[in-house]
């Protein structure tokens, strides 16, 4: 509440100083804007920026990190009664103290009477810190407002280069925005690498990348069956590869041939109808594909294979029949095929662009030699477009590897080293989701393993993307 009032005051101050600056500059030019260096508004804006922005930034930082500061102040001085608590209980204790201080809902933990006393004492302390941090922030903001005003206002006169100064601010803002993208990448890399390093402290990278046993369940007790936990991710890579290959077997030919048809055969009218229709397929959210895979394609495939297996029963292929009879809904084939459907428009629109950028002169030359359309496509256009199409396929592969919802809903959870498309497999993304969506403490190797997998996924897709984008760009330049 108080914070909102301060924000309002700050906004009001900015408006007032804007008007003051404008008036002073106008007055110094004798009320005639023509004699001034910049338009009057720039003078006001300049003052208002210096008055408002630093203070607002400070407030933002304080809101962002105030809670952390309070927390670290709280835990510096721990009463002796806390020593009997475990690390998690302590964490909870301090969280509850902060929650009490701010009047939020506390956790459901029950405290003994003497612990409750300590909690209330800490809550009081926390309340003190909250007020101190708030008041400190507001005081500092007031100082900044004054300093900003004193720094700018006396210097205003008609010859002051206000427009250039304001544009300097604008340039700075624009540059900051463009750096956000770089910061995002850094944030991704740092958070992945940081958590992965903690994971690799307990599991060696060699075991992670080359091990063949994946069972990330860490037992509650040491003697529990299967508590050892296996973090060999090779079965996940195999599963990811299998699903990706199936997807590309569907998306590759269908996407490429529809691109060829659209760019070489279809007339403008057919193009205008088919292209948007294909784009609808691209706009469907992946969770919808997942639903389709799990509840439509999965049962259909299972029934198909089961009845196919029924035909073989008793015959020379009895074994195969028995195997087909017990195929499950969740299998690599279902996930792969549906993912392939999802990738069709992606492959087709990228290939379409690339085929279109093959110069018409090459085609005309081929026609002049008497080649038919298909011969032109096969012998001239496709070879010329090959690098670009390879790039497009690489981008599609990178998409397939990173796709999450379809495999989560349709592929399954069993980590198996298999290339049999009828088996249940699991992929890197599925495991990330399962490891991170349960209720568990954050620091176990189990959750950290997700970051290890994420880092691997990020690295692989990054390399694929860089290579693919480079190829596509090179290819474009070749014909530009």
């Amino acid at each position, binding site marked *: 509440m108080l914070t909102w009032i301060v924000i309002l005051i700050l906004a009001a101050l900015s408006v007032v100083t804007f008007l003051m600056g404008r008036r002073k500059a106008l007055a110094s030019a004798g009320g005639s804007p023509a004699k001034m260096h910049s338009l009057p508004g720039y003078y006001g804006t300049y003052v208002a920026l210096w008055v408002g922005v630093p203070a607002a930034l400070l407030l933002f930082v304080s809101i962002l990190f105030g809670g952390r500061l309070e927390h670290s102040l709280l835990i510096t001085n721990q009463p002796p009664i806390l020593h009997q608590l475990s690390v998690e209980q302590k964490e909870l204790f301090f969280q509850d103290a902060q929650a009490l201080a701010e009047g939020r809902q506390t956790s459901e933990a029950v405290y003994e009477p003497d612990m409750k006393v300590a909690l209330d004492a800490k809550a009081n302390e926390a309340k003190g810190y909250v007020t101190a941090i708030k008041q400190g922030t507001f005081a500092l903001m007031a100082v900044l407002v004054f300093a900003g005003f004193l720094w700018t206002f006396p210097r205003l006169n008609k010859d002051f280069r206000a427009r250039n100064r304001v544009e300097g601010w604008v340039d700075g803002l624009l540059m900051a925005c463009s750096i*956000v*993208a770089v910061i995002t990448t850094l944030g991704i890399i740092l958070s992945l690498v940081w958590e992965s390093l903690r994971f690799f402290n307990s599991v060696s990278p060699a075991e992670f990348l080359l091990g063949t046993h994946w069972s990330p369940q860490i037992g509650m007790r040491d003697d529990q069956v299967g508590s050892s936990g296996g973090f060999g991710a090779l079965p996940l890579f195999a599963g990811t590869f299998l699903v990706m290959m199936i997807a590309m077997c569907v998306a590759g030919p269908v996407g490429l041939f529809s691109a060829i048809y659209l760019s070489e055969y279809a007339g403008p009218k057919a193009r205008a109808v*088919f292209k948007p229709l294909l784009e609808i397929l691209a706009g469907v959210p992946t969770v919808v594909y997942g*639903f389709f895979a799990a509840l439509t394609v999965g049962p259909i495939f299972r029934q198909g294979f089961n009845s196919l297996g029924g035909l073989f029963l008793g015959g020379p292929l009895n074994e195969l029949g028995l195997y087909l009879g017990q195929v499950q809904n969740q299998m690599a084939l279902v996930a792969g095929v549906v993912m392939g459907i999802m990738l069709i428009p992606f492959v087709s629109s990228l290939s379409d662009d690339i085929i279109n950028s093959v110069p018409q002169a090459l085609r005309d030359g081929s026609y002049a030699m008497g080649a038919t359309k298909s011969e032109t496509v096969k012998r001239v256009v496709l070879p010329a477009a090959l690098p670009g199409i390879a790039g497009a396929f690489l981008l599609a592969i990178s998409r397939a590897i990173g796709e999450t919802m379809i495999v989560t809903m349709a592929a399954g959870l069993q980590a198996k080293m298999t290339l049999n498309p009828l088996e249940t497999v699991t992929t890197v993304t599925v495991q990330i989701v399962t490891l991170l969506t349960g209720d568990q403490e954050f620091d176990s190797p189990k959750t950290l393993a997700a970051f290890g997998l994420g880092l691997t996924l990020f690295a692989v897709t990054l390399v694929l993307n860089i290579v693919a984008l480079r190829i596509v760009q090179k290819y474009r330049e070749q014909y530009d």
Partner: protein
Amino acid sequence: MTDLPITTTTASDRARDIRAAVESRLKIRHASERRFRLYGQLAIAIALSFLVVLLGRIVTQGASTFVVHSISVQVPLDPARIDRTALEGVNYDLMVADAILAKLGEKDDDFGTKSEAVKDLMSPDFGFQLLNMIKADPDLIGKTVTVSGPLRANADLYFKGEIKRSSPEEERTLSNQQLDWLDALKSSGAVKTGFNFGFFTKSDSTEPEQAGVLGAVVGSAMMLLVTAFLAVPIGVMAAVYLEEFAPKNSWTDVIEVNINNLAAVPSIVYGLLGLGLFINALGVPRSSPLLGGLVLALMALPTVIIATRSSLKSIPPSIREAALGVGASRTQAVFHHVLPLAMPGVMTGSILALAHALGETAPLLMIGMVSFVPGVPHGFDQAATVLPVQVYIWENASERAFHERTAAAIMVLLVFMILMNAVAMVVRRRFERRW
């Protein structure tokens, strides 16, 4: 050549041979041409049939959600059965069940097996309705009140033909007796069929018949608002900087490569970023629209930047030069002239990026949005659920009745996406200028 014993062929003979050879091959070549063309047509047909099957399946699976079977019951509020001092503890469901049994003309046995069986046909919402009525007006006790609401999901599925009487009784969730009752209620006109408004006015619930999409729609809207407020201004300004102001040096090359790669990073990695950076390092509240919006904004940012840049590129340099020529500064030329002209392209690109963000699920699973959230979210820092995640949650639910609701939620999601795409198309058609 000359020392070979050649059969003497004249030039015209040779020409005829060649023509014959060409003509005989021509057939093959044309056949292969037709084949090739057919492959292309087949590919398009396959892709489009996938589209039809996908959308058709969802509509056929989801359409039944919009029909609901509801019932009105007159329940006598027997004072002997209601403890005025503990209104919460009264078994209202049993009173409703008894009222329906009375309507069916059945007598319950001493163990209450029949009323239990009837209770299984009614939504537990009836009990809450009675409780709320009595709480609001305790004088109702002793009178007869009318409550109405949907049947339990299983009973609803029976009327929709999903549960069939022909299947063996032990494989069904409803017994023959329950089916008889349902038929009796239906033929007596007590069960009414109507449009399922509840699906749009209620939020997630553990009972399929009470579950609706309102909470998810509001959550999605809030999250998208955060995304739009962050991704669009930052993306547009970054694009303006890169396109209009940035010097061409290695640093801007780095930014460019970076943006192109960010656009292709798997979405789940953004979820890991949200978990590692926003939750663990910055303490943004888990599963809130604020957090989801932040993550999706980072995801949508590259798309917005790329769309804005291509839109800025298409503005002819003459506009810029004319502004500079009459004395505008570079900033003024860009913000007063170039950017406004590029706005239609920017809006189209932004809306498409937001539509994509609306359907995104995977990163939201990472930041705790899978939790069960009944009710509409009240603030940007409260736990919320969004449409695609709601789809995921319902798809995982074991009750069969949730499956039709999943498909219906998908239909709602698709309607919103189609609307956004339509807006983008209208903006493009109406305002875009060709130079």
